[in-house]
């Protein structure tokens, strides 16, 4: 099963700004992350499932309707994801952007904990944005759990 989550805003835990792109995973493992629009257009026909998180009617700065947040405590389950969500919501209300919030959850960035890259387990949740209120979907080892 090859799944592509298209046009998500990836918050990779580094604390850097979220970036927009596509995440592909297969057999529970992330196989490809692309930043930008339609960068793996030619590979799309090979996907079993494509879920597009971009609204049709959009301006450039809007339209991506989901953050992809890595799960930080494998093995992940729904309760752990919900706990992460609670912190994100609380932080956002306090004026803290999601990238900083996730950075705090994951620990210090580069070369210590690098969550989302090709080869990492497909443990992540997708949450809505502006404001963050709910989990849209959650995956543990590539399996959808919500």
């Amino acid at each position: 099963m090859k799944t592509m989550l298209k046009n998500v805003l990836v918050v990779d835990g580094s604390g850097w700004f979220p970036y927009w792109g596509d995440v592909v995973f297969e057999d529970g493992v992330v196989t490809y992350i692309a930043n930008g629009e339609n960068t793996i257009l030619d590979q799309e026909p090979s996907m079993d499932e494509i879920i597009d998180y971009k609204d049709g009617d959009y301006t450039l700065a809007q339209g991506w309707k989901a953050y992809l947040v890595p799960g930080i405590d494998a093995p992940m389950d729904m309760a752990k994801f919900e706990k992460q969500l609670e912190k994100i919501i609380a932080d956002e209300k306090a004026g803290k952007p999601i990238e900083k919030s996730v950075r705090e959850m994951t620990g210090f960035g580069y070369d210590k904990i690098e969550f989302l890259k090709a080869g990492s387990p497909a443990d992540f949740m997708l949450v809505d944005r502006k404001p963050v209120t709910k989990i849209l979907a959650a995956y543990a080892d590539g399996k959808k759990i919500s």
Partner: protein
Amino acid sequence: MANLKTKKYFYTPQEALGGRIGDHTKHQFGNYGTDNPDPTVLKAAKIPTDRLLQKIDGRSPDYYGLAPVVDEDAAKIMIAMELRKPKTFEEILEKTGFDKDYLNYKLEELGYYGVVEWDWENDQHVKKYSVKNFVPGSAEILNEHPEWYEDHPEFAEMFELSTYLPFAGFGPMGLTQMIPEGGAGSGMHVIPVEKAIEAENKSVDIEHISYWIEKYDGHYGVGPCTCRLERAERGAGCTDDPNHWCISMGDFADYCCESKTSGSHHITKEEVYRILGEAEKNGFVHQVTNVDGKDKIFAICNCDVKICNAMRTAMLFNTPNMEASAYRAKVDPNNCVACGRCVEYCPAGAVRLGQKLKCKDGCEQTYDFREDPAEHIWLKNRWNADYRDTNREETYETGTAPCKSACPAHIAIQGYLQMAKEGRYDEALELIKRENPFPAVCGRVCNRKCEEACTRGTIDEAVAIDEVKKFIAQRDLFEETRFIPEIVLESNQLTQWNEKVAIIGAGPAGLSAANYLAQKGYKPTVFEKHDEPGGMMVYGIPSYKLQKDVVAAEIDVIRELGVEIRTGVEVGKDVTIQELRDQGYKAFYIAIGCQGSRKAGVAGEDAEGVISAVDHLYNVHAQGEKMNVGKKVVVVGGGNVAVDAARTSARLGGEDVQMFCLESRETMPASDEEVEETLAENIAINNGWGPKEFLRDENGKVTGVVFKKCLSVFDENHKFAPKYDENDTITVEADYVITSIGQCIDWGGLLDGEDIEFVHGNYPKADPFTYQTSVDDIFVGGDVYHGPSFVVNAIGEGHEAAESLHRYVRPTCDSLTLGREHRHFFEFDKNNISVDSYDNSKRQKPAMVTGVDTAKTFDEYKQCFTEEQVKIETARCLSCGASVVDPVACIGCGVCTTKCAFDAIHLERTHPDRSNMATAEESDKLILLNNAPKRLVHIAGQSIQKAIKNVTNR
């Protein structure tokens, strides 16, 4: 061109960057930055900038663009690294004293934001980090992420100002005019289309794109275009797909693809060439970076002048010196036929249409070219903030070929005549179809404004343009010879745009719009309430003029482009506009024509046997030759539609067919040719009569018409206000009466619930250039916009509407007009030309089909020209117009050469010094110490010479 001297003396950045002032509500400058900047970050912000002698503080874009991504530690690293001085990790570690892992992380972070880049371009081939300039450099990388704009719109503004402020300088004088040929390492540089200089044996390696591609073999990446993204974010974007245009080269490509910094990914050499080819199809300009000296570039851009910040430096400051390549375009007037393709695509507005014919005094026409900044004191009053619009003016003030100017669709008539003369019929058809998807239809029914205007008509008779078009367009009727236009998207990775567009009405305007939308990459849907598409071409024009299979064949071509035509669907009845919106349609083009008929408003008009011409012609199409009109037919009206009604009645068995109209023979609206043919078919035309009463028998069936003498048709203000002598009447017997006294719009329920404004009764109010109505997503065109007109007018309007619809639905485009072709062609003064010699053949006439009664047949009886006639007729063309290059404005991109089908425009290597490449470090010296004094001395010397000359001449 516009007289720049009449412009404002100074432009604010807002005005200069905004193009048309006030055109973009979104294009406001934000209140970014702080009065209390972090001193370390502020110090770091002064490193990447190249603004000479300008104050940088917490409110400067240099600061507020950098501050979100550079904290105090990152700033310290930047300060330690200095500008463009590559250092190893160890060297930076030693200078900063940071923890190794921490420094590594911060460098990665700075790399991610584009502030720091790395490469291996040193003798030891070790990884070295360096702080880049804002432009080209970090300001662009920060703008490769449109997702960041929501929280950081200041990135877009910072990039925009970074490309403007260094050149705008301060005070009334900018800096760009001082930049020497070659650009002095100050940014980007045009590199010509490779094919345009292949034959130039004086060219040097670095002028060839292939040289750079080979040099960086295996190290190519492609990513989003930051100019396209940034301009879109700031409300001045264009319709292009912003992705996949900017090709990174060498180590920069590896940096872009290996860091997470952008949407870049590695591509093959073949892909590089494919992208360049797609760019050339769209008329985008290739540019290379020009900040690293003689033998290094790091990117090839494919730039659209509507949004390109680099090209803007040349256009806005009116100083092509800093961008232009070593080449200039030159037109060979012997080959040029003023088709206008080069004009349409020239990004700099350097090629415009002029004339080939000499003036009466025997001299060549002269043109108002732009002034050369190297020759004049160049203050801000000479800038051109409206360059995106003024560059799109197609015609020099002295005018061009009358045929193209007069044609409502502005077809390249001189061009296709030349192609036909050379036997290049397929290409001729292609050229016509750039402006007209119905050449076979128009070859039969056009009102021939081109021939009215034809210069040859001032000598003997106009060239039989339409007959030649008909001959060429015969190829469109057969599957094996017809021409299917190419679909060209402003994207090199998508195969179509997903935005849905609905066109309501499958007449010539609607189908023309659909055709050109399809060519742009849409799959529009046309809704037509009748059973057949074609509108008046099918239901209004009799088949002896236009056979229905001709219309059907040309509609087939449009279908083949991907247009879906849904017949038997009446929008407003079967489905509403709002329901279509709910189905995802983003824009609507209403082109339903004028299907209703005006009433005469006299007694007995509702008698059986009295019918409007529109309904009559519809019935003729529906019922065919079986239709019964009786023997005595009266037609009320004197226009072309009345003529059609009369002539079809005669073919349906009418033995005594008479027309009555208010106007005199000379002023009646029907064309002279139509009147002649009508009279030849023994149909009487009675001028100067208006209907007083329709007579009917006891069963309510019409028996005749009483006419009253018309004394005058218009009042002193030329308003329609007929005056009659009520006592001077005649009574005419009739079995069947057709009224053809005007058409009107039958809206049905189409606009129910839509807040459309109307003018002149129930005509929709719309912008005359964009055709947008008071409801933003509804556009109109064709007869429904201005009343009954001709097929070719509708076709031209449909073409323009396609551009408006395209701009409207593309989310990156905010303006329906910015940088849009004006489509304003006007003819030269025919009283001030001299024609030295010409082919003295007489105008050819098409043969008639023999053995048929032309007055009775419903078959087309006019034959096509023979090929021999085409040769004779096309040789009669005086070839009036030609493209003319403004040598100052030309930037030597070669785009024009790729569009010319006549081998008439070429690049010449006239400015070899413009291939001089320099480093950014050399820039100040080359500009201020080297070129500026030389330039001033030159201008002063010229002024002195001029003064001496003036004194001597006194």
